[in-house]
């Protein structure tokens, strides 16, 4: 397999695109024709960003959001992988539950957020529960897909050589399904991050999302934008980590 080399040409276009967006932001601000409450000037946001990274408030909010993310992702992965494995093993269970889970996943769960607040309170617990509930679906669905789509010939071969259930799982089902499962984990992590920030913004006292919402309400747009830039950087970091993880798992001899 070819090592996925870096296409410098494509990379240059991507960087140019981002630079263009930033330049446009700067130029629009420089004309002075846009109300800075709607779009603060870029130098002002940079200045604010420099200030907030020196405050403990940012790190306290970051800690809250990351704790929620880690907890939600851990719960969603444990439940999603377990449910996915048992449903995926049985053709009939997959037939029954796969469409059911896919249907539930299609419901915008955000409408149930008030219930989560009611059950788990306004603190971190409701964000964890909500993020875990949402992230559970892509993880479970991909695990079902991965396990149930393992080529039955591989199972037959393993059985003919005397593989027991544990060996079959560890040596055949898991490696065969891993690329699909890892994709599910990646989607689950991103969805957990998204729903945690969303629920913090709607009803939260702490965390990056609630901070952004509070700044917006206070018309403090420059600082809000600084927080948004921080969230974007965090999301980019998360995405890079997930991509690295996914590449590692799909590179282990999994090419067609």
């Amino acid at each position, binding site marked *: 397999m070819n090592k996925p080399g870096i296409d410098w040409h494509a990379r240059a276009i991507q960087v140019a695109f981002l630079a263009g967006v930033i330049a446009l932001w700067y130029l629009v601000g420089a004309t002075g024709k846009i109300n800075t409450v709607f779009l603060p000037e870029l130098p002002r946001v940079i200045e604010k960003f420099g200030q907030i990274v020196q405050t403990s408030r940012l790190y306290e909010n970051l800690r809250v959001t990351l704790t929620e993310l880690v907890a939600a992702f851990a719960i969603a992965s444990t439940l999603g992988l377990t449910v996915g494995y048992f449903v995926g093993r049985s053709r009939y269970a997959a037939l029954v539950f796969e469409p059911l889970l896919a249907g539930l996943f299609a419901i915008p769960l955000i409408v149930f957020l008030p219930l989560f607040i009611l059950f788990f309170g306004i603190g971190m617990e409701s964000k964890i529960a909500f993020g875990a509930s949402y992230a559970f679906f892509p993880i479970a669905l991909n695990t079902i897909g991965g396990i149930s789509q393992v080529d039955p010939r591989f199972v037959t071969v*393993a059985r*003919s*050589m*005397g593989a027991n259930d544990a*060996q079959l799982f560890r*040596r055949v089902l898991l490696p065969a399904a891993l690329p699909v499962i890892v994709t599910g984990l990646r989607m689950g992590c991103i969805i957990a991050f998204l729903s945690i920030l969303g629920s913090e913004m709607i009803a939260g006292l702490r965390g990056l999302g609630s901070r952004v919402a509070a700044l917006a309400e206070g018309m403090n747009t420059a600082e809000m934008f600084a927080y948004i830039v921080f969230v974007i950087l965090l999301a980019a970091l998360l995405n890079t980590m997930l991509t690295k993880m996914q590449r590692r798992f799909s590179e282990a*001899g*999994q090419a067609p």
Partner: protein
Amino acid sequence: MGAIDINNVSHFYARPDGGTVETLNNVSLEVRKGELLCLIGPSGCGKTTLLNIIGGLVQQVTGEVRVNGKPINGRPSPRDIAFVFQDNTLFPWNTVLDNIKVALEFQGVPQSERQGRAEEAIEAVGLKDFGKNYPHQLSGGMKQRASLARALALRTDVLLMDEPFAALDEQTRMYLGEELSILLATTNKTIVLVTHSLSEAVFLSDRVVVMTARPATIKATIEVPEKHPRDPAFMASPRFAEHRNELYAQLRAEIEKTVGGFVGNAAARDRQRRAVAGQAAP
């Protein structure tokens, strides 16, 4: 007692519409120790089903199968029997060497012996330098050799091969056939091989068993008394052509049943026409 004893084995399965399909009808066969026996017959006749019953992957409905005297009843017997399947069934996530080591793990070989036996097996099939390659990095012929190495590493008395060369081009399969003949002469394994190829059957077999169209019964058994390893020159010999023709003569009527052909009918019509016209047969 042979290496494999098959007594009155029948098999059928239920169709989704409620009917049943009879695949094997009362098949009895003894495979001698150390011989290579080919099963040949029209497509879909039940050769593979018979092979899978011998290997314990499918359970017969009635009858008895014994391998090395041990009854086989729809449960694999990995200590006695190894398989080589038609398509490449190596695990794509393992290297060639790891594929063989995993097979040994499944069979219950202690970990300390696995590396050595796996290396020995890939050397036996000439893949010594490809142990660290993944299956997708190998050609079709090399993949099948790696599959063969995996089966050999299990050191079973019996090797069951289900059209192992079917997915390969003709020259590759001829070459692998020669290799198999050499291996056969040195390992003294009992091999049952399912094939579609008349030449392959004659070139490799000690005996060829011709099966009828479904439900399969044994129509004829043709002996090929020729020492292993067999030379490619054997293929050009009149003896080879004779065996091959005999095999085709036995098979033709069965193939006609499956494809609904007209060759036999045309010949019959021709005979009839000549009889009416008072002509002697040519």
